[in-house]
């Protein structure tokens, strides 16, 4: 009987710990996404290693519940391209083509800021978190979590994440790809440093290939649910107006 009680206590403690970690992730997520269904206007600026500007891109992201996202490329160089992500399934749609291309998670990773960086706005649903340590992030105390992918379609297989201890805002992250190589280092810039309400910018430093810096700015966020057909790759292949 004693053994059963001990096991039950252990299981309860483990569940409570996991729930606590998940609550922590949800709190951090709220700084990037405040609702299950969102439309986010995003601007990406890439800088060379000497700090000179490289390129600028604009995206509209429809981030919907149940791991469903649609990314519309808005810059002249990519205008008309779309990436659809339904859970672990991804499609690329090119403006001159009527055929949605089925793409692998690896193809989704391509680009200085991958489509996953732009479209993935929440960690709580996609990762299991483990507490690592209480640490110092600059002057402020922070919590170091180690996140492992809970499903296979996520952009990064492992994330080392540092969250502010007082306000639970994301501070920085190390992003690891499938082969467990460090792909990017992320730093989160808040809208109001003294009383943050939202992440204004995510700064990514490439560690895998070109070591360029990419700044992902969230220009506008609003709650929006899109029609079901918008998340069908064959509907998107018709190049419909998505306003």
């Amino acid at each position, binding site marked *: 009987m004693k053994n059963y009680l001990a096991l039950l206590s252990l299981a309860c403690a483990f569940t409570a710990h996991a729930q606590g970690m998940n609550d922590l992730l949800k709190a951090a997520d709220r700084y990037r996404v405040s609702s299950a269904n969102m439309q986010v206007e995003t601007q990406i600026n890439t800088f060379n290693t000497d700090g000179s500007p490289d390129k600028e891109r604009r995206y509209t992201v429809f981030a919907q519940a149940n791991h469903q996202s649609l990314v519309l490329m808005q810059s002249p160089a990519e205008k008309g391209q779309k990436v659809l992500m339904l859970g672990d399934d991804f499609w690329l749609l090119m403006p001159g083509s009527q055929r949605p291309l089925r793409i692998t998670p690896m193809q989704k990773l391509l680009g200085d800021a991958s489509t996953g960086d732009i479209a993935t706005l929440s960690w709580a649903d996609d990762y299991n978190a483990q507490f690592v340590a209480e640490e110092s992030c600059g002057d402020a105390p922070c919590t170091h979590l180690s996140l492992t992918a809970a499903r296979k379609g996520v952009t990064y297989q492992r994330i080392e994440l540092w969250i502010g201890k007082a306000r639970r805002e994301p501070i920085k992250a190390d992003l690891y790809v499938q082969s467990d190589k460090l792909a990017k280092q992320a730093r989160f810039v808040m809208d109001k440093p003294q009383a943050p309400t939202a992440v204004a910018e995510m700064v990514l430093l490439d560690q*895998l290939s070109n070591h360029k810096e990419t700044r992902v700015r969230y220009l506008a966020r609003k709650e929006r649910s899109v029609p079901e057909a918008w998340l069908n790759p*064959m509907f998107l292949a018709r190049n419909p107006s998505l306003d």
Partner: protein
Amino acid sequence: MSASTRWLAACLLAGTAVAAHADSEFSGQLRGRWDDRTASLIGPLAQAAQLDPTVAPPQASAATLEAELRGRWQMLSAVATLRSEKPESAAWHSDGVMNELYASGEAAGWQLSAGRKIVAWDVGYAFRPNDIIQQERRRTLLSFTPEGRALLMGEHFDARTAWSLVWVNPQRAVDDDAGSAMGAEEQALALRVFRNVGEADWHGFARWGQHTRASLGAAVSWVADDSLELHASGRWAERADVLTFNTPASGLATSSPFTVATRNNCAQALVGGTWTAENRLSLMAEFWYDGTAASNAQWDDWQARNAQITAAWVNGGPAALRRGVAGNLAWQSQAFAGQSLRRSNVYLRASWDHEGWQPSLDVLYMPADGGRMVTAALGWQGDRVRVDAGLRVNGGPDDSVAAQLPVRRQAYAAL
């Protein structure tokens, strides 16, 4: 400024002006291109050119300017291409194509379209057996916007399923002519059903053509793991209209030995896959069988006819018949018109995406005769400008079909 240049500039300015209108969506793209072609020294067309260069001159190198205008206004959508070309040693000539012009709307949960529209189906890259409406040319050196088909189309979508029903070429008169089915010009009904099931996209196809009658097809694209995508497509057709070589008698022919003939029970199939690495290197491999292409026996007959003309007339015939002999040889080059030259084909492609640069190398290999087409290309994408350059070389053993194509090398640069 030449008339052609003024014409293109005016078109682009017009497109830009319309783009400013608030209630509509318009855009334009200007492309310039140079193609440098080197004729083959072997093959029937090369021999024809040696005998009489005026009968069938090889395709000349050329400069091309294109303006593509896209627009959407309320229910109407349109794509038009205006094109000016200047072949080497010839004057500019211009033409225009309305690639698409259709009206679309929604009724009872169905998306409806009517007009000229591009409808491209199937899952392959180098060959698409189930592209049963558009029947687009594949493996072009640069991507281009094809000319859509006249059609009436209804489509229905839910979360993971799509139905498409198309009446293509409804304006065509009722006929049973084999020639009208070539190039997808015949009147036909086509159906596609798409269903996404987890890692796999399934497609089913059916078509009823006025002349080619029934055909059925299926295709799948499957993401096997994080890096690997596999795809397959197959189609059976009750009839297919193909160019057929009728071996003439031993003398010179007075008309082309090629006619459009109907072949029964044709099959086409493709299998392939793409593997992508973390360093942005992509490798693609495809194999396909095209039952509408000429058989090995037909190519043997074609080779025998080439040899017969060469032995009897090029190397020993009277000079007065040179023009007729050249014409007979030129007719032999009609054999190159099909989608696939040989029935069995292997296609390999490696590409890399790095800092806006996209180098690629691909080879189409035909095991039946060792013929090959090798293409090396380099693209660069800037914020508003794209630059492409490349080289395609057709080759193989001298008796292979690819080595006897009229163009041996084609280099291109496009902006």
